[in-house]
C-alpha cells in the first residue's frame, strides 16, 4: 500500500509544480527577456551606470581637468596616467596644463573613486558598454579630445 501512496505523493507534488509552469505558459503578462542587440535603440540604462570613464567636454571643446593628478593617486589599479605640459599664459607666466589624460580601459575596475576624488568635477562615468576590440592596445585611451582646452573659469 505504501508503494502506491509513494507514487501518488510523488506524482501529485510534481503536478503541483507543473501547475505553476502551466499557468505561466497560459497567462504570460509580458515578455521578460530582452532581445539584445536588437533592442539597442530602446535600451535604457540608469543614469549612474558605470560603463566607461569620460572627461567631460563642453560644446566649445573645453574640459575641467587642471592636471592635478588627484584621480591618478586615488585609482587603486594605476589605470590613469596624467601627462602634463607647461604652457605660457597671456601675461607671460608658465603654468601646468593637461597634455594627455591616459586611461587604460582594460585595467579599470569601475569603482568611480577617481570621479569622487576630482576636485574640479571633471570626470564622469558614462553609459556606453560595448567595447570589444581586436587588439589590447586599442583599450589605451586618451580622454581629452584633440585641441581641447581648460575652461576659462579654472585657468
Amino acid at each position: 500500500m505504501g508503494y502506491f501512496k509513494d507514487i501518488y505523493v510523488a506524482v501529485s507534488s510534481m503536478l503541483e509544480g507543473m501547475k505553476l509552469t502551466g499557468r505561466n505558459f497560459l497567462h504570460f503578462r509580458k515578455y521578460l527577456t530582452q532581445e539584445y542587440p536588437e533592442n539597442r535603440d530602446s535600451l535604457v540604462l540608469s543614469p549612474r551606470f558605470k560603463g566607461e570613464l569620460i572627461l567631460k567636454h563642453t560644446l566649445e571643446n573645453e574640459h575641467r581637468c587642471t592636471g592635478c593628478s588627484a584621480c591618478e593617486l586615488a585609482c587603486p589599479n594605476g589605470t590613469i596616467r596624467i601627462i602634463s605640459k607647461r604652457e605660457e599664459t597671456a601675461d607671460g607666466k608658465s603654468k601646468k596644463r593637461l597634455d594627455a589624460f591616459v586611461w587604460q580601459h582594460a585595467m579599470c575596475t569601475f569603482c568611480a573613486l577617481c570621479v569622487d576624488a576630482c576636485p574640479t568635477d571633471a570626470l564622469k562615468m558614462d553609459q556606453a558598454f560595448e567595447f570589444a576590440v581586436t587588439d589590447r592596445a586599442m583599450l589605451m585611451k586618451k580622454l581629452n579630445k584633440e585641441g581641447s582646452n581648460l575652461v576659462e573659469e579654472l585657468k
Partner: protein
Amino acid sequence: MQPTVEVLNERDYILNVGPQHPSTHGVLHLRIKIEGETILDVEPVLGYIHRSIEKMSEALTYRQFIQMTSRMDYLSAHMNNLACALAIENALQVEVPDKVKYIRTILCELTRLASHQLWWAANGLDLGAVTPFFLAFRDREAITDIFEEVCGSRLTMNYIVPGGLMEDVPEGFADKIKTYLDTFERTLSEYDQLLTGNEIFRGRNIGVGVLTKEEALAYGCTGPVARASGLSCDVRKWFPYEMYDKLSFEEIILTEGDSYARYKVRIAEMYQSIKILRQLLDGIPEGDFQAKVKKIIKLPAGEFYQRVETARGEFGVYIVSDGKSSSPYRIKFRSPGLSNLAALPFMTKGAKIGDLIAVMASLDLVIPDIDR
C-alpha cells in the same frame, strides 16, 4: 596539517571533480576517495582562483582596498564593503548619520535576498530542475536593476565607503523597493510550490549531508549552514551593527542539519529579509549621506576587527595598522565559505557521489570568497 585524503594507498580510487565542473559553481577542485559509488573521503583543493587580495590590499590605501572585497563574495558585495567601512569607522570613531545606517541596512538585506535567490536557482539546477533557475533570475534581475540605479553597478558595488555612501540614493528609492517587495512576496510562495514540496527534491535532500551541531561548531561554520544544525550564530543578533538592534526579526534555527534544513533556513530567511526591509523603508530619515572623513585616511596604531552577517555567514575583516601609513599593515579576511567548505568531508562521508552535488548545492559556496 594532515591531508584529509590519504593517497598513499595505491589501491585507493581517487576521483577528481573540477576544477572545471558545472556543479561546483567556480573553480573548486575536489579529490574524492571512493569505493564503488560510496564516498570515503573528500579533500577540497584550493588555489585556482587565488588573487592575493589580502596582500594586494597592503599596498593600497584604506579607501582603495574596499573595492577589492566586492570581488571576493561577489553575491554579498554590499556586506563585504560594509564590513570594511565599519572597521575603519570604528577605528576612527566616526559616527555616521542615521540615514546612512538605514540605507546600508536596506542594501544589505536586498543583497541577502538576491543572493538567496541565486542560490535557490542554482540549487534547483544542480538537482536537475531548470525552471527554478529562470524564476529566480526573473526576481533577482529586479534587485540588480535597483542596485544599478543606486550605485551604477550590478555586481561589484563599491558604494558603501568609509564615512557613508558614495553618493545619495536616487529619487523614489524606497518606493521602488516597496513595489518590488509586493511582487516578490507573491512569487516567493511559488518557490515553495515548485521545489520545496517536490517529492524528488525532498528525497534527494532529506537526511542527506547531515552536519551535527558539534561539527558545525568545531569547524567554524556560520550562516544558514550552522543555523540548520541548531547553532545560533547570526551576527545581526549577537553583535548588531547599523540598524539591526532596533529591528524585530527572527533568527531561523533548525536542528536537523541536513541539506533540506539548510534549504528551509534560507527560504525562511528570505521572509525575514522582507520583514526587515518593510520596517526600514518607511522611516528613512533626512540627512547627509556622508560623515566627515578625511580624504586620506590614517588609522591609529592597533588591531581592528569587524564582523557582519553576509548571505553565507560571518564575514570578518581584521586590520592591523601601524599608525603611520595610509595603507593597512596587514589585512585578513574571514570568509564564511572556507569554514563551511571545510565541513564538507563530514557531511558526505558514506554518501553517494550524486549526493555530493546535492550537499554542495545546499552549502551555497562562492569560490572566489573561499579562495581570495
